[in-house]
């Protein structure tokens, strides 16, 4: 009896995987059905549906990058304090001192790659007409996930607290000042006043809501940190679950109807 067989016959192995190794057809089916991670998949798929030049794998790449961002992000959180006093210095330390400083590089490049992968995924879904019935609603969920991906990247952009970060967020969030009705330099905002008192001022408009301040400052750093590390990832995780579940419910991966 080989060591491999000995391990696979042990009570521990069987208690985890509950079935023999996937060497025959029956067990290859069972492995997908009984494994928590694999059961996202169906048991069988059409050959042309998983051909790389057909599917491009970009949805899977996006999901994998989300996992990479989560893992590297959690590791970075051990090293990083979102305060004016420490934010920049902690990033400096990640660059110059910390052993796992490369996590920041992987996190940043992974973030750019994730934005690109989402676009390529949507590009492929459009070009194969896969948003058409019965997958209309999953496309809508996907568009929301696109927005959240961009917001994740945007909120993360501020955290290094260097010139690049602060001014990119300043330029990006200045747009919110011009939101119709809700930005204090937006059309219609003057109409929202009660007895001569403006409801929309630089201290109460959409930009203030985003920044937690009249300018990009410590309140913004705190706000973006929580959005970046907790709030948006939670929503994204929920929507990813719905997105995957809907793929199965809406007829599986794209195929000619």
């Amino acid at each position: 009896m080989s060591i491999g067989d000995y391990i696979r016959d042990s009570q521990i192995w069987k208690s985890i995987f509950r079935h023999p190794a996937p060497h025959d057809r029956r067990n290859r089916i069972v492995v997908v059905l009984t494994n928590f991670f694999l059961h996202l998949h169906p048991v069988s798929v059409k050959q042309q549906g998983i051909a790389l030049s057909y599917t491009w794998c970009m949805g899977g790449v996006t999901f994998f990058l989300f996992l990479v961002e989560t893992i590297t992000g959690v590791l970075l959180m051990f090293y990083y304090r979102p305060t004016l006093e420490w934010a920049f210095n902690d990033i400096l330390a990640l660059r110059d001192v910390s052993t796992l400083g490369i996590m920041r590089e992987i996190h940043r490049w992974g973030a750019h790659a994730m934005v690109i992968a989402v676009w390529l995924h949507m590009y492929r879904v459009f070009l194969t007409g896969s948003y058409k019935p019965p997958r209309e609603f999953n496309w809508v969920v996907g568009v929301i996930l696109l927005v959240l991906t961009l917001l994740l990247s945007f909120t993360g952009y501020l955290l290094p607290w260097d010139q690049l970060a602060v001014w990119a967020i300043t330029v990006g969030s200045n747009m919110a000042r011009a939101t119709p009705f809700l930005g204090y330099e937006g059309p219609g905002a003057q109409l929202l006043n009660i007895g001569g008192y403006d409801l929309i001022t630089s201290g109460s408009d959409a930009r203030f809501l985003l920044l937690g301040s009249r300018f990009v400052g410590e309140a913004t750093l705190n706000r973006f940190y929580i959005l970046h590390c907790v709030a948006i990832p939670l929503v994204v995780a929920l929507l990813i679950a719905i997105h995957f579940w809907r793929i199965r419910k809406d007829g599986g991966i794209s195929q000619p109807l």
Partner: protein
Amino acid sequence: MAHPNLTSSVIFGLGWLYLILCLMNSFWAMAQLKKQKHFKVWDIFGGMEVPSATTWFAYSLFLGLVSFAHFSGSGSPDRFMLSLPEFFKDSVDSILADPRVYFALTVGGFALMIWLREWWTKPTVAWILLNMSILFLALSMTDWDFRQIVGKPDNVPIVGMLFLLGFFTWIYFSRAVDNDRRMAQGLPIRERENNESVLVWPDLVYPELICMIVLTVILVAWGIGLPAPLEEPANIAKTPNPSKAPWYFLGLQEMLVYYDPWLAGVVFPSVILGGLMALPYIDFNKSGNGYYTFNERSFAVSTFLFGFFPLWVALIVLGTFLRGPNWNFFGIYEFWDVHKLEALNNKNLSEIVWDDMLGVGRPVAEAGASFASQSVTILIRESVGLIFVFLYLAALPPLMAATGYFRKYYNRMGFIRFMVFTNLILLMAALPIKMLLRWVLNLKYIVAIPEWFFNI
């Protein structure tokens, strides 16, 4: 020299790039050899049949020599021969450093991409195009100014994205052309051929595992090779020039040249996202579901690609690589001079109408007039522009429903769908229209009501 076009490390790095290109073409040449393709030499040279692979082997050999020259010649960068000639860089900068030329080129390129899709998707043509773009990049890297912009750590992913987009667009068009040809001949499309069911273990989970490993290796290598950017500590008192949003928002920032923030930064992004979400509900075309085709959905694909390439990706490239200090347009080899001046003599439509055409001057409310009478004056002053905008968004859709190309769409879509559809199309067209008006008439705003922050 303060800004050396070539340094030892640049030459050495380019040596690697040429070596990779040499290897790529050697593999390509061997693939050609296996196919045993031949071409006939011109009669004056003897008219022999020569294997196509010979050309590719010769080209690979040449690239190998170029690579070797880079590895061995890096000791004296100022005397190194392989770089872009100055007159070429100057002429590129003087001809192309203009948003009008740039936009015309992107729209022209987009039209050619669709029109010549059967030609440029041929493997040999596509391969030559890929070689040309890599050679262009490699040669351009010998320019100091080009390197400053393209070599910025955060801009590297954009260059990668452009190559990926080219590659995947090639996949789309070659598969679509193939399927369209099959359907014309009455043959089954490629997605239906050899389409047996296979088990997910191992046929899907193994490719997924390989994909994850490859991606991890890429990310780690990328992380080792290219440090994440870190500039000076944040300083609210010191505004960088230019100040740019993150790269994926630079298309929107570029729109600020033509529209005010409430449109470019709030309304248009919302319309883009709303339009994307509405897409499955307004595209009534049942065919082209789950397979690649162009002919069966030419309108949908062309419209989407127009929005994606000239109006989104090209604007990101423009905003990232070509907009310098004061958001001025700079050529790819041009120094980002803070003092570059560009004449701004744009006029509002109301000025053109009241001052230039009627010659009576724009109506102004009397000092101390009531809010209502001030508002009326403002509305009269901007009436021409307001009427234009109203006609564009409210009168054009019914007109499109009643006549012309879009009539059949109206019959298929019904009232609400059609109104959503036409307004999305018109809002998408609003950007190129405003660009043209700016370039042809120097038009600043169609409707200019700064009193209400309402400029269009």
